[in-house]
């Protein structure tokens, strides 16, 4: 059978869904399509199913918190890294999510492998994925309060014991007797 020629993802999405593609970025040989948050699932479905693109493999979903310097349109960014095995090339879909109600539609309908990746981002960054089959915390205990990987969440640093301060640390450090 004859493999259809590879289309350029940026133009293809520009032609098919002009209003959802906000910007195209090129950096160190990687193309990034910045998409409107509401129709990420639509774009993902399109990219996976059209014959010239066939991005059939979801490699990774990562979330970034631009907390102190806010130099991006919104505070949170979610990056979907997808890969096309047929044409052997990678693509990144970037979505910016506001700080108050971080909400992104889920892509588990397109790639079921996104199930746990989205749960981890909900657990670590507090970004809710609407339509996700099982939106629970993944890594932290179910009743943990706060989202640890946000940049305003303290690292939870505990003072290290050295010879000069070991007494007063051990005074209020709870050691189990039995």
């Amino acid at each position: 059978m004859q493999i259809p020629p590879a289309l350029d993802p940026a133009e293809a999405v520009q032609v098919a869904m002009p209003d959802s593609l906000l910007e195209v970025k090129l950096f160190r040989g990687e193309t990034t399509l910045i998409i409107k948050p509401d129709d990420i699932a639509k774009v993902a479905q399109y990219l996976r199913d059209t014959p010239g693109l066939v991005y059939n493999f979801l490699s990774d979903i990562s979330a970034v918190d631009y907390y102190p310097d806010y130099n991006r349109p919104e505070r949170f960014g979610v990056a979907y890294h997808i890969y096309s095995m047929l044409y052997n090339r990678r693509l990144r879909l970037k979505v910016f999510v506001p700080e108050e109600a971080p909400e992104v539609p889920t892509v588990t309908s397109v790639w079921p492998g996104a199930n746990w990746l989205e749960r981890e981002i909900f657990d670590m960054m507090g970004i809710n994925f609407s339509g996700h089959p099982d939106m629970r915390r993944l890594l932290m205990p179910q009743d943990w309060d706060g989202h640890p990987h946000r940049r305003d969440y303290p690292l939870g640093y505990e003072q290290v014991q050295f010879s000069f301060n070991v007494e007063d640390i051990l005074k209020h450090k709870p050691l189990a007797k039995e």
Partner: protein
Amino acid sequence: MGVTSKLGNLGVVTTTLDTAVNWARTGAMWPLLFGLACCAIEYMSTQASNYDMSRFGMELNRATPRQADLLIVSGRVTRKMAPVVRQLYDQMASPKWVISMGDCASCGGVYNNYAVVQGVDEIIPVDVYVAGCPPRPEQLLHGILTLHQKVQSETISQWA
């Protein structure tokens, strides 16, 4: 080390009894099959053919806490795992000892953050701390021998 000095001239019965019971305890101290993280892999190398922990009476790694005498906490104890470690320690039969293997179990090690308990002695009483990240098998064996010396110097008043 009162016990060993008394051994020479067949002292009071209790001291020979101490020696006998302590010798029996260090002879076959079975560890709990309990591995958390990277130290567990070094713990497996210590148990495997090259370093062979069975030479020190640790032939079997018992999977249930009921049949284990020694809990080797090998790896980093996280906030979510802490109640489980405490539960395992509670469910072990009574003459039981704890070796905290590696820096992460002894003092939180390289992870000084929200997710790791800074030293397993916050949860369970620890007998011997083994340093290293991960400690070499020889270091763990040295820790085990230190524990054996500690057990051999115990007296009846401590555990009767």
